[in-house]
């Protein structure tokens, strides 16, 4: 299925968000996720089914001022 992940097109087989993170091998990484501009909390990822064209954001800690 065609998705946008962090602004880049991607073709993935996962159909829910937590499966997607597994497929992308994020493992235990300390991240947060958003689907089409709305946050998806850790606990809700498994229940969040993906549709073609969905825009997913996956963010992690970074330097900041």
């Amino acid at each position, binding site marked *: 299925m065609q998705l946008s992940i*962090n*602004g880049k097109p991607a073709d993935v087989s996962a159909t829910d968000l937590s499966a997607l993170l597994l497929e*992308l*091998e*994020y493992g235990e*990484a*300390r*991240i*947060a*996720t*958003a689907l089409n*501009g*709305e*946050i998806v*909390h*850790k606990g809700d990822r498994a229940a969040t089914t993906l549709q073609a064209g969905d825009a997913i*954001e*996956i*963010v*992690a*800690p*970074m*330097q*900041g*001022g």
Partner: protein
Amino acid sequence: MLNFYGQALDSRLLLGTAQYPSPAVLAEAVQSSGAQIVTVSLRRESSQERAGQDFWNLIEGMGTRVLPNTAGCHSVKEAVTTAHMAREVFDTPWIKLEVIGEEDTLQPDVFGLVEAARILCEDGFEVFPYTTDDLVVAERLMAVGCEVLMPWGAPIGSGRGLNNPYGLRTLRAHFPGVPLVVDAGIGLPSHAAAAMEMGYDAVLLNTAVARAGDPARMARAFSQAIEAGRSAFEAGPIESRDMAEPSTPVMGKAFLS
């Protein structure tokens, strides 16, 4: 003693973590600054690079509290969503709320700021708003639940110091009991000391340290200047006067002419 949202702190310097030549230099600077709070941010993470995980391990090793920011957010929704993601990633209710209103100055959009602060306070965040020295904006921020205010000294990264000392002094006088942090624009230790001498509770810095020739040394310089300014405020400085007054007593001077 300094207290943010019930958290007592010894250090009055909050340090940013961006723009250092290397992670090692960052770690060294944080340590020599004595900062107990460092600001952090969020960015897209690819599963291959995992840059964020390495950064996180570095920060965790420092044993400081983190204050995540919403840097670069221009809308209320963006700032609010970013704050929620930050809470999940960093596991803290603290958020340095930036809602940027203009690109040249990176000044706050005070309208968006108050609205985002309102939402986030309702959502249980402890908001550190990056604001201007506008008293009325400050009152609104407190009315929606902010217990700390962070007025700018000058545009982010400009190193200009305190553009409007009068405005900052007025803000301090108007909110005697509220923790006030000068955030952004500081370039030199003397700027930070001057803010503290006015009675500000703390200073938040990044560029002035990270981009210095010797960040660790500059970090320590700022921590000393901030302590110095605070001590001066508490130690009761002399009034400045227009005319001179001999420091050496004139009484008993020998007659030698």
